[in-house]
């Protein structure tokens, strides 16, 4: 059927191990790093769902936009803060444009329509990157933003870059939480998530809140994209496909609409992958298979997620 390449199998080498305890510790450290990246993506899904009641199925492709934006900026400067800020800004604006062009016109339609619209838009974004980014269809080397100096942390041998990845990811999550919990914009966002009509009656500007939500979620996606590039050293135009599915799974695992659940879900998914790779037969190449099977089984037994979905049924 279609000619687009398949979902990439992501591989990553860990340092040679000394004992099984070291192996496990090393793998858990890897899971924590991946978990940060997944959590950043999952929080976006949960924000969209909580505030706008939509599933933004192309959120993974927004992550790709962020990674390629950073790649472009890195061609001009290697000053890391500039790369982050520029990529976040560009991706955030792409997010706003995306909302206005694709999500807003379909927001009053049935949920299925919104989902299909974002799917189609995601396809367009992916293809646009493939076609219009120079050599877009190829695997791009992502520049080493952080030093690769080995650091011994207890039983675990990590590279300095990996501390940077974890640190920046956690900082982004904490910053988002602060923004949502402590600022007046955050209060508006929470108000809309809780009761759109009441918030509107109290003078909350919905357009502003929606745009802000898309900006925040897309900027977070950019952070995730950069960290992903820094972690795997490569980016491709379709990296967002699998990241989007993982992010959505993580958000559902944690309970859609629940931000802390999304973070927990991100780490849980990374842990599932890591443990599958370590413990199950043919695990290293089938880690995602096992992880998704667990997600599907999870839906059978606990359909509202780890921390419970913020759900209201109106009759």
């Amino acid at each position, binding site marked *: 059927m*279609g000619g687009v390449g398949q979902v990439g199998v992501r591989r990553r080498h860990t340092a040679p191990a000394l004992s099984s305890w070291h192996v496990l510790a090393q793998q858990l450290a890897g899971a924590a790093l991946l978990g940060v990246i997944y959590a950043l993506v999952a929080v976006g899904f949960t924000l969209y769902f909580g505030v706008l009641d939509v599933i933004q199925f192309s959120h993974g492709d927004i992550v790709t936009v962020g990674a390629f934006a950073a790649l472009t900026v890195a061609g001009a400067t290697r000053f890391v803060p500039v790369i982050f800020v520029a990529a976040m800004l560009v991706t955030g604006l792409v997010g706003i444009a995306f909302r206005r062009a*694709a999500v807003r*016109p379909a927001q009053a339609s*049935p949920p299925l329509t919104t989902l299909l*619209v974002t799917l189609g838009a995601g*396809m367009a974004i992916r293809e646009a990157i493939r076609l219009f980014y120079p050599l877009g269809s190829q695997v791009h080397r992502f520049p080493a933003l952080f030093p690769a100096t080995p650091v011994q942390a207890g039983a675990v041998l990590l590279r300095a870059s990996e501390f940077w990845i974890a640190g920046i990811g956690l900082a982004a999550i904490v910053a988002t939480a602060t923004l949502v919990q402590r600022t007046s914009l955050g209060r508006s966002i929470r108000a809309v998530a809780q009761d759109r009509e009441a918030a509107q009656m109290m003078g909350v500007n919905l357009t502003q809140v929606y745009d802000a939500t898309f900006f925040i979620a897309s900027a977070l996606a950019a952070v995730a994209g950069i960290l992903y590039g820094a972690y795997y050293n490569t980016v491709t135009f379709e990296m967002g496909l699998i990241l989007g599915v993982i992010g959505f799974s993580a958000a559902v695992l944690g309970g859609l609409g629940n931000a802390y659940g999304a973070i927990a879900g991100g780490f849980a998914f990374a842990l599932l992958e890591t443990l599958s790779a370590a413990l199950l037969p043919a695990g290293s*190449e089938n880690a995602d298979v096992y992880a998704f099977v667990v997600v599907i089984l999870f839906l059978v037994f606990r359909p509202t997620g780890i921390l419970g979905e913020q759900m209201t049924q109106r*009759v």
Partner: protein
Amino acid sequence: MLGIYAALLAAILGRGVIALLGAAALAAALAAAGRLRRGSRTAALAALAVCTASFPFFVRSNPYWNFTAALSALYFLAALGVNIQVGSAGIANLAGAAFFGSGAYTAALLATRLHWPSWATVPSAMAAAVLIGTLLFIPVLKTRGYYLALVTVAFGVVFTLLLTNMAWEGGPQGVKDIPGLGGAFDTPLRAGPWTLPFYARYFWLAAAVAALGAWAAVRLAGSRRGAQWNAVRDDEIAARCCGVDVSRTMLGAFSAGNAFIGLAGGLYAHLVGFVAPADFNFAASLVLLSIPILGGLDSVGGAVVGTGLLIFLAERLRSIADYRFLITGVAVVTILVGAPRGLLPPPVRRYREGSRMRGPASGDASGRPGRAGGAQLDVDSVAVRFGGLRALAGVTLSARPGEVLGVIGPNGSGKTTLFNAIFGLYPVAEGRILLDGRPVTGLPTHRIARLGLARTFQQCRLLPRESVLDNVLLGRQDLAAGEALSWLRMFNPDLEAGMYEAAGDLTLIDRRRIEIARTLMGRPRLLLLDEPTAGLNPEETARMIEELRRVREALPGLTVVIIEHDMSVIAGLSDRVVALSNGRVVTSGRFRDVSSHPAVLEAYLGSAEVAL
């Protein structure tokens, strides 16, 4: 319209015979979409048959065109399946290509490893897709909405990854050298002076199967089952309250769709002779999904148009072939945002003017067979909680057979919650609800409805895009159009005349009437009316009271529970009144006594005093 499309296609395709085939297919699409009269429809289908039969003769020197045409027919078949799932039933299947691949791999492995003949592999392919779909559906039986999207996406990823990573079925290289369908299928065809490539037979077979599939899809879409698929898609709660088993209906649609997709996949394996995991990935699923979206969701004719557009993009515009996914993505967004019903929207479901349509001769609906009179409703100390909030705190009330029980109470006193609890829409934390002495607490909503309960909603819950007649028919599982029309006639003769109009376009009182007619279709023994006059002006309210009286005269044994704020409605209709406040029964009895009861006055006016 037909002319524009045909001219467009002819211009695009450029080749005489292919243009002809396209035009004929388009005409058939219009026929399937119910746009043509009977005579033109027959002509269009005959033209398509002639074009299909003669097509290989025109391109006999070119096996590629025969092959491509056969492939297009199979994509169309698969798209019909996706359309049933996504378009008709609103099930987000984002792994269409994986189901297609399940069928293809099943046929490929059975043929190459076990040397099964093709007449056995192809049905197996169909069965495999249905079986896998059913297994995947189990997780979502309890939940709804986006979860099936997630499950299917995850399945698609798992499917491609597993096939790539496992070695026994060929790994990333896939299965090669799959035999053809066998027998005469794999030899060139000599017909008089002409020799046709062997793909010609495949094309004819694929076209015949696709035509059969289209016929089946049109029949399904026009049937009561198709109407139920639409109901489940548009308003699950209304469907459940009309006795539709939503899980089973959705599983039925999902399986029917997968049968189409699996069949197409099985034939694909034998046609192409080679399957590989990369052919069935997420991108391929998106392409398959975009066919019905472009053409018009829930429309068989739309699937024809959608397939034509995509094939044209892929095959004809080779110069910009690289851009086809980009164009498809943009087109999907544009169509969904600009014309959500697609290029060729589905037709209104029309019913034959047969005996079923006439039904009982008189507008009077009494004396219908099988009417079992009214039911006894007992609500026994029922409590409903939402988190810490007690919406109902031990409500006990009864409605006797044939009685009209009015339920009054200020906003938030638990009236609608009571209805939702009776219908199993809210979980009952304590107490029991009995229908004719039989406990119904904990039963699924559709089972409760099938016991003879029917209800209306405070905010009318009709299917706005469906016709008046289809909305009324939803109240019953079988096609009883005659009865439906006689009820419509009783309420408002204009409704009978406009039975094929979209229900969403009508006035509020007409929508209320349709909703009440819908409840009566299920031959209810207990009818729950939730504020039937809310939002009506005084004149309309008076008319509604009169019409409800007539319903009662027509169905003398029917038990009715009616929630109202308008005291004139309660006074005019009810035999007995129960007053609720803060989730408790304050008092009950005759209207005069209840309405002057101090607790009721306090409940209604006391809050007003506080407000002052």
